[in-house]
């Protein structure tokens, strides 16, 4: 469960579908290619939605961790 070097933390707790991926898609451009964003969300759908979003947008989910009600997802910008 090694933490990844995130340059930005995106707090999306309390936001339900579709807001987590909407915010993610708006924020991905704010970091450089190769950098990592750490997302905090409470929407259980995010566990499958973020990998789907990453696949579709050409980015990468490095890891997802569930810690109580909070899900932490590490997203690397690839393009």
């Amino acid at each position, binding site marked *: 469960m090694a933490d990844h070097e995130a340059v930005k933390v995106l707090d999306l707790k309390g936001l339900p579908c*579709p807001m987590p991926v909407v915010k993610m*898609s708006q924020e991905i451009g704010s970091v450089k290619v190769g950098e990592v964003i750490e997302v905090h969300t409470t929407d259980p759908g995010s566990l499958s939605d973020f990998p789907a*979003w990453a696949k579709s947008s050409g980015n990468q989910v490095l890891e997802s961790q569930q810690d109580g009600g909070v899900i932490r997802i590490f997203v690397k910008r690839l393009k």
Partner: protein
Amino acid sequence: MNQSVEAQLTELREKIAAMPPGPQPKLSLIVFSGELDKLIAAMIIATGAVAMGMQVVLFFTFWGTAALRDPKVNAGGKDFMATMFGWMLPKGRNQLKLSKMHMAGMGTAMLKGLMRKKNAPSLDQLFEIAGQLGVQIKVCEMSMDLMGFRREEIIAYPHLDYCGVATFLAEARESQVQLFI
């Protein structure tokens, strides 16, 4: 022989060049139903699709057009049928009913309360987000005419215009995803 192969190749190249482009990462969604639950679903899919990197066009037709009425505008000068339609149909998205369990308003009110409690985006918020994300809305002219709606009673939305079935089909045939709600 060689010449004929060359000629065939040239012909093929010309054909390929003249072919229309294949499906794009685009969503064409028909909003036919004028019901709260179905419009919420349509708007969530629309905003989600933009997040997925897709271009989104929503075609509002039939009962769906009533959801685009501006409750603050009273369009006068309508004939009897248009006035009746205007009176019977919801005046905007906040008057829509659930397709199931409306229960004389109780079910719809309960769902709206539940959505607030769960912090789910309301239709007002979804329309605002959709506008910011560049989701296009195209409204069926024929439905407007049938229901007797005037353009001045349709909401001010940043990317809204009016169209017919050909516009929808032209968009749909080059969209990877087409949905009807």
